[in-house]
């Protein structure tokens, strides 16, 4: 196991291993410090950040579903200035690159966020969440129209020197069309998948369970969809992929890499086990050891 290479490169971001955290499930990182050594992670992706602070949606904001969960947090966050002032300094003490997930209401918002974060010391890369509503076009999601997704990507690309990872929404007919659009617009890497739009109904109250009615489905229930989309996108474009969607253990992570992921993100699993990230990293190492793999990069896309 001693001479196993775990280092990967995610579109210009050098990582000591392929394990990252999924935005929104790991807070601003330090929340998990009592349970794991944050220095061991390949990267930390923090909570989605917007220009202005947001209070998010009313409760209930989450519901458990078979092998998964629905969330409708509504991007509650302190805003980018407070993030840089209050949350980034302690993160700089950790020897792990920090990826900031950003969201906006307009193409201009994304551009401004990118330029503010470009100047922030301690931000290693940007992950662009395009699964939020485009207010100007009447609430349609940027991530569901190739032209808007490309416009957002371009706005970020033009305002930062840092690696740009565009996070795709699975709520589309053809994921490869979206992938091509954002890669052509300058994305260095892709992240997928974001949550699948879903809902639940309480048959006792005869009302939707979430205050927001709809929420994003995540967890083991979405894994087959995530794997399929990563497999498709790996064939369609030539940039690295950060894979996520229901990864619970090392075996799941390996499957994602075989489908085409260069790195993986752990989301809902963090809630079921605060040590999930490092258990998954250990699982990847064990697999490589057992299978005689000397370099994790050998695994990427090997299922094709």
């Amino acid at each position, binding site marked *: 196991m001693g001479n196993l290479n775990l280092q990967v490169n995610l579109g210009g971001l050098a990582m000591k291993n392929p394990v990252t955290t999924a935005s*929104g499930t790991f807070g*601003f990182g330090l929340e998990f410090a009592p*349970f794991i050594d944050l220095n061991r992670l390949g990267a930390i992706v923090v909570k989605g950040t917007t220009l202005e602070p947001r209070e998010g949606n009313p409760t209930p904001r*989450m519901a458990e579903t078979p092998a998964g969960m629905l969330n409708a947090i509504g991007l*509650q966050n302190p805003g980018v200035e407070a993030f840089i002032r209050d949350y980034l300094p302690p993160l700089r003490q950790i020897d792990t690159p920090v990826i900031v997930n950003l969201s906006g209401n307009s193409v201009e918002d994304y551009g401004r966020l990118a330029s503010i974060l470009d100047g922030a010391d301690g931000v290693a890369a940007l992950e662009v969440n395009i699964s939020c509503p485009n207010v100007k076009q009447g609430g349609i999601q940027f991530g569901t129209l190739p032209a808007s997704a490309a416009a957002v990507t371009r706005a970020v690309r033009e305002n930062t020197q840092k690696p740009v990872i565009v996070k795709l929404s699975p709520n589309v007919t053809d994921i490869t069309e979206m992938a091509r659009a954002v890669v052509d617009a300058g994305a260095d890497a892709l992240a997928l998948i974001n949550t699948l739009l879903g809902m639940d109904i309480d048959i006792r109250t005869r009302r939707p369970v979430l205050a927001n009615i709809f929420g994003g489905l995540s967890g083991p229930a979405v894994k087959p969809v995530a794997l399929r989309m990563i497999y498709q996108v790996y064939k369609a474009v030539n940039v690295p992929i950060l894979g996520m969607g229901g990864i619970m253990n090392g075996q799941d992570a390996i499957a994602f890499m075989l489908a085409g992921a260069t790195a993986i993100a752990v989301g*809902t699993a963090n809630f079921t086990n605060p040590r999930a990230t490092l258990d998954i990293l250990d699982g990847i190492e064990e697999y490589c050891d057992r299978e005689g793999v000397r370099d994790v990069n050998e695994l990427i896309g090997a299922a094709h």
Partner: protein
Amino acid sequence: MQKTSSINSSAVLADAAILSQEELKPGFFRLVLSAPELARRCQPGQFVQVRVSDGVAPLLPRPISIHGFDGEQGTLSLLYHVAGQGTGKLSRLAVGESLKIWGPLGNGWIMPENLTGGSKNLVSDSEVSDSQNFVGGSEKIPTDAPVDADKILPLFVAGGIGVAPLPPLAKAWRDLGAEAILLYGARSADQIVTADEFTAMGVDVRIATEDGSEGVTGRVTELLKDLNTGDKLPLLYVCGPKPMLKAVAQLADDQGWLCQVSLEERMCCGLGACLSCVCKTKTGDEKVGGKGWTHAKVCTDGPVFWSREVVWNG
């Protein structure tokens, strides 16, 4: 501004062996676990996350209050009511089996030692209402002057399974020799559990049931109405369903009593990371053009809040 400091820095993950599991009344269980490291770190009013299965059913952990802890014995007890899949599965686990738990989580009740003059935690009413950051369980006292623990009448108010997090608090006040009262409301007598244990600690237990099968007929607020507080200032510690918390908080507010409430929300992480568990708390910034409230996290800013922090109609 949101607090960056609300992190459960003393929490640990444990494989806790089940030492006993007892059904106190139909559907009400007490579980005793071996978790030495965790038990040593507990404060009254905190909770743990309990992973009931290794698999996906249920997927998420269930937040359960710490009903008792013994640092020397290394044990922890939980009192729970079977509400659905998770607690149902928990109730079927047997002695010798173990389960993953993590904690202690959250800010507990304000303790007698934090009430006395000179405590670093004291702030005055005016500071509280001007604060942009009016969140946090036991850190601030909404009164003008430091309060002396001798002048306080500790009043525990429980609704149903809300009795669960109160015994460690009752112990702390008993150790000071305080005269304390438990007002305990439930639908009927078969939902009253552990009342005798409070009596054994010297707590004056008063019960109200909605069907009149034990104690006074009606809700717990009936018991509050004709309470003789003598020359002491009541400090209410309230845990139960939200409508009850709200009613009791209003009553306490009208009387000028101190009142802490333990809130519940659906949780995923319990660590302040996912933001699923929020409640509205006052920020006092209406005057300066703010909206007057913010979304605080029940898991790390609470679960215990001063009742006056909470926005009850929102």
